[in-house]
């Protein structure tokens, strides 16, 4: 660890709408308080290309929908001590999971063929392949803390992260709810 006083915190965005990250930012000035206790070592707001080693806490937003999501989830899990599923998409698959009753085929056709005005074709190769089912993160890798909500409130995210960096078991049960 570069700074022994500070916990190394990361965030990652799989198949979600970025709302959970927005909610994270909604903690406003408390971000400064957090910054005193934690160093954000990776995330959409940090200019780092590779997910680093030795991360204390990673907040995962989004469900696992594609092969790329799955690869990321595995990397993140391997390099993180406490993995947090943040928000309904990560916890239940939520909106991305709404394609599950139909499978990826019809979804791709709807998006790239039926609704395309120009150059209708289902992309291959350049974008990661969709998995047959959209699943929550813990369907693939062990998750330590679940924070449901769409999105979880800034207050809740703040208290969970502070609890974790200060070595407490975060209080989520009975507080957080789906939706």
């Amino acid at each position, binding site marked *: 660890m570069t700074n022994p006083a500070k916990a190394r915190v990361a965030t990652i965005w799989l198949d979600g709408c970025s709302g959970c990250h927005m909610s994270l930012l909604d903690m406003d000035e408390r971000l400064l308080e957090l910054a005193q206790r934690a160093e954000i070592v990776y995330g959409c707001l940090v200019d780092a290309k590779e997910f680093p080693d030795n991360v204390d806490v990673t907040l995962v937003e989004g469900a696992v929908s594609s092969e790329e999501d799955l690869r990321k989830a595995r990397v993140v899990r391997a390099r993180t001590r406490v993995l947090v*599923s943040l928000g*309904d998409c990560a*916890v*239940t*698959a*939520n*909106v991305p*999971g*709404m394609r*599950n*009753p*139909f499978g990826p085929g019809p979804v791709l056709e709807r998006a790239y063929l039926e609704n395309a005005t120009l150059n209708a074709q289902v992309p291959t190769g350049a974008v990661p392949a969709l998995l047959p*089912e959209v*699943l*929550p993160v*813990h*369907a693939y890798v062990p*998750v330590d803390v*679940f*924070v*449901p909500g*769409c999105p979880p409130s800034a207050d809740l995210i703040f208290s969970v992260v502070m609890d974790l960096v200060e070595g407490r078991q975060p209080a*989520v*049960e*009975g*507080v*957080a*709810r*789906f*939706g």
Partner: protein
Amino acid sequence: MSDEVRTLVIDGRDVAGASGQSILSVARENDIEIPTLCHLEGLSPVGSCRLCMVEVEGTSRLVASCVTAVEEGMRVTTRSSRLLAYRRRVVELLFTERNHVCSVCVADNHCELQELARSLGATHFELAPLHPVAEVDATHERFVLDHNRCVLCGRCVRACDEIEGAHTWDIRGRGTTARLVADLGVPWGESTTCTSCGKCVQVCPTGALYEKGRSVAEAKRRRPYVPFLVARGQA
């Protein structure tokens, strides 16, 4: 139902009820909360959701408090780690059985299932979702039935039958393929028995029945209206 007094102990508290009164009813009179879903005061109890199960001393079997009458000297426990774990599982089974996406649901923030999950501390599910293909019936001119959200509690069936007297609703099929049906399986809009009174919509605990034109989180029930509805049914 005679009115003899029955004294019993619920969660260590001495309480009294009338003979024939349910454990649930006595508990609620004494501000002891037991989670329920299929139960609605004023409708006949069916004991099907199993959330209200409690422990009774002297028997290893759990009993459904909504359909079990109090008895003299009974010792009831409504909270234990076992009951909590079981109730969470029931909620989990319901969430994973159909397609519940609270964030885009008309009932978001007004839903009994969603609130049960929160109050029971369910933060995630271990069971895989079944994600069945379930229909949305929007053929009625004022209401919508979304099977994706239905938990088969049967409250609409009983409200329609016991209060409105129409018996438009019933349940067809078996097991997890069971579905709510109007009449003998017609689209709701074509039902010849539905009086469009909207009682079913008011008693539905989830986002399965709602008024047309409602969007996400707008299906707030006029709950104070419900006791009035069902009180008429009892008279």
